[in-house]
């Protein structure tokens, strides 16, 4: 069974204090790993897709990296507006029909204190 585990569950940072969030996964036939940001009561907002080990993507203060077993979301010099829950999701082949399903982790709730 596909599994996605995120750590830590919650993270409190001072403004400007860099850190990393972890997403470890166990899937067969990975077709993509996605990072989303979710604000309370809102839908997930797409951030990045990673496809292959060694791949990196950057956007403003965020940088996502991928290995064969895990992904990291690095947050450099965070600001209070970066406070949100960050979700990791993996898309993998399912069954023999070529269908793909997305499995989400439980997320890391980030709080950035001014």
């Amino acid at each position, binding site marked *: 069974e596909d599994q996605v585990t995120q750590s830590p569950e919650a993270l409190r940072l001072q403004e400007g204090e860099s850190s990393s969030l972890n997403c470890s996964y166990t899937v067969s036939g990975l077709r993509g790993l996605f990072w989303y940001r979710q604000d309370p009561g809102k839908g997930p*907002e797409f951030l990045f897709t990673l496809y292959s080990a060694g791949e990196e993507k950057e956007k403003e203060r965020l940088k996502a990296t991928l290995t064969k077993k895990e992904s990291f979301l690095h947050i450099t010099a965070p600001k209070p507006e970066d406070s949100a829950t960050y979700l990791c999701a993996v898309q993998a082949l399912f069954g023999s029909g070529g269908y793909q399903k997305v499995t989400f982790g439980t997320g890391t709730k980030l709080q950035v204190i001014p």
Partner: protein
Amino acid sequence: EPEVTQTPSHQVTQMGQEVILRCVPISNHLYFYWYRQILGQKVEFLVSFYNNEISEKSEIFDDQFSVERPDGSNFTLKIRSTKLEDSAMYFCASSVGLYRGSNEQFFGPGTRLTVL
């Protein structure tokens, strides 16, 4: 920027009633999805839809659920006889395709369903 829209934002219903949740996916996207998120829990896949038929569904998506694309823009999720445990946020999502470079799923703002 194109976005997925959902209506209503909040639906309150009595147990046993039917509800229809509506979504308008991004216009050039071909794959449509429904997810749910029970309060405090993770986002869970319900169903994917392509070319006017279900391409995949989870074990959650039982006979009480159905999906439809009644016209060229709307995508609906119907729950036939709601239960208390159906209370959750329901998210619609869409993607251009299934493969590398086209499989990013963009989510709508969600419909909060409350079953009393």
